[in-house]
């Protein structure tokens, strides 16, 4: 039982049904933004209210929830959202990607491959990929209906003309099932390939903008590019200083004011698993010493 005096998972049943219906239509039309009557949540708009509403509408007593922000389980907003569900939905929570049935995320997709038994819930600030070219919803709605996406290609091409590359590095636009242009939320383009043909169902919630959209499992998701400028992801010359990974998205950490810096995995669970399995990066220590150091905090 929950301690709050509110309904299970905070939302009333009527609101959950409304969101559930929107989710089903989102799944039926992959990449299309379904308008829904988003509610005020007890957390601020812009802090994951869309993702929270989607999670609240789907989550049940048998679920295990993981919440990440910037790839990490221990960032303050991830902690806050995980607590919200532990409190209002009495749900089991985990930091392990492999144990989770529902993963709510802001800005990352876990490095550990997802499975058919998982649902990803993305927090979305601006669901409309065309917004920066056309701010009016009345216009972008028509552009989606007519599949009129020339302006996006023009925008990317202007990057190439100016910089020699496509300069979009996160929230990199994708085509879903060869039909809808979609904002993948502000994940780094590093994560875009993971959207494609994922075994997991992927749901996207934009609370303030009141839109829900989805990518069903095993659905083609293509990052926009040009034949002579193919899509490519970020690369680092360094590896993770703690676990030595060379295949993960790295956060840069400034270590002093003399230009000292190191790179560590943004996915804290992935990094921890690697260290536990004995991988040691250049500034890391072996798993036992790490355990002692973190336990001492």
């Amino acid at each position, binding site marked *: 039982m929950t301690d709050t005096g509110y309904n299970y998972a905070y939302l009333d049943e009527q609101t959950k049904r409304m969101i559930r219906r929107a989710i089903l239509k989102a799944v039926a039309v992959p990449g299309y933004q379904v308008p829904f009557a988003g509610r005020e949540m007890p957390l601020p708009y812009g802090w994951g209210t869309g993702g929270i509403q989607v999670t609240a509408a789907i989550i049940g007593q048998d679920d295990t929830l993981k919440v990440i922000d910037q790839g990490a389980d221990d960032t303050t907003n991830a902690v806050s959202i995980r607590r919200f569900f532990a409190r209002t939905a009495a749900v089991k929570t985990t930091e392990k990607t492999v144990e989770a049935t529902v993963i709510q995320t802001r800005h990352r997709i876990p490095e550990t491959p997802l499975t058919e038994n998982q649902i990803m819930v993305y927090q979305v600030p601006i669901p409309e990929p065309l917004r920066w070219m056309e701010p009016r919803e009345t216009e972008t709605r028509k552009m989606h209906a007519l599949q009129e996406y020339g302006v996006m290609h023009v925008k990317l091409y202007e990057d190439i003309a100016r910089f020699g590359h496509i300069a979009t590095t996160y929230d990199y636009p994708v085509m879903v099932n060869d039909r809808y242009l979609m904002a993948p939320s502000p994940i780094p383009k590093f994560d875009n390939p993971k959207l494609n043909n994922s075994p997991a169902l992927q749901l996207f919630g934009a609370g303030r903008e009141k839109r829900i959209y989805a990518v069903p499992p095993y659905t083609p998701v293509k990052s926009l590019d040009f034949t002579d400028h193919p899509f490519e992801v970020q690369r680092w010359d360094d590896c993770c200083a*703690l676990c030595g990974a060379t295949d993960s998205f790295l956060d840069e950490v400034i270590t002093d004011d003399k230009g000292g810096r190191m790179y560590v995995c943004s996915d804290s669970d992935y990094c921890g698993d690697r260290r536990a399995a004995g991988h040691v990066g250049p*500034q890391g220590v072996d798993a036992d010493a790490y355990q002692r150091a973190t336990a001492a905090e």
Partner: protein
Amino acid sequence: MYVAVKGGEKAIDTAHQLLAEQRRGDTAVAELTLDQIKNQMTLAVDRVMTEGSLYDRDLAALAIKQARGDLMEAIFLLRAYRTTLPRLATTEPLETDALRIIRRISATFKDLPGGQVLGPTFDYTHRLLDFALAADGEAPVPVPADAAPLEPCPRVTALLNAEGLIEPDLAADDAEPGDITREPPLYPADRAVRLQTLARADEGWLLALGYSTQRGYAKSHPFAGEIRIGSVDVEIIPEELGFPVCIGSIEVAECEMINQFKGSKTTPPQFTRGYGLTFGHGERKAMSMALVDRALRARELGEDITAPAQDEEFVLSHGDTVESSGFTQHLKLPHYVDFQSELVAVRALRAEYDARRRARSGEQGEL
């Protein structure tokens, strides 16, 4: 050895403790009571109820106390509570003709039936700090109640309407008005949806937009036809009874702006309306709302849409303080990943740029 930052849970708990401490302030000073807020910070309570879309003075006072006097935060608290409440009934439209008036002024006629009733207003106060208040001033002398009850106050717009000089009030059609708390916003919006959105919009936003129309960005020649403040009964019609039952009364501020309109081939020259309504004594907000309502009727009245205040999607989608405050402040949240993506890109572009420059200066050196 480097250990990644941990301890989000503990940090949050400590932050909440510090917040509670700051809210309470010096414990040698008596704690603020909700009654004090409710009775002495009435305009703050009014604003929180209006933009929080919930008429409950006690909860608004609690929200103000909990928010340390930050009205936007208080509005958010009330809104987040409101959204969980079950909908028991829908009230009948308020009959503001029957307002029990405590203030009523018109800028369009020197005198009119019912007269000008100044009521409690800052309007003619000299804005001099009253140091007597700082020294726990004595209770103000009460104004003796008028012996004669107020005459009926017919609306100024009704008087003009009798002459056919103002557009008729929109005919009440059978269509149920939309409900912005239950339906996603879609544009173009009808007037009912627009007015609902304006009623809970940030006062500062409406004030600035209304002001811009006065400075020529969508000029509409407004006159404050009438401003009325008072209490009005709220009625519902229970299904099993079939007739209206009064369930209480609320205080509202209402403003009807009268605006010029040249007329068209099919419409005779006549004045047009702009409407504003708030809970409590939100007179400035009601006036701003009426200006913006009129500006947003540009499409309907066949006017050129040239100014921000006439742009429906722009005005309606940026006025909600819960939305704008949340999204502006979300920039505080970590964006390490996006920023790292940009860093990687800018460094790469910069390296290419420098290489190009070196190559160019090398070529020049050879010449």
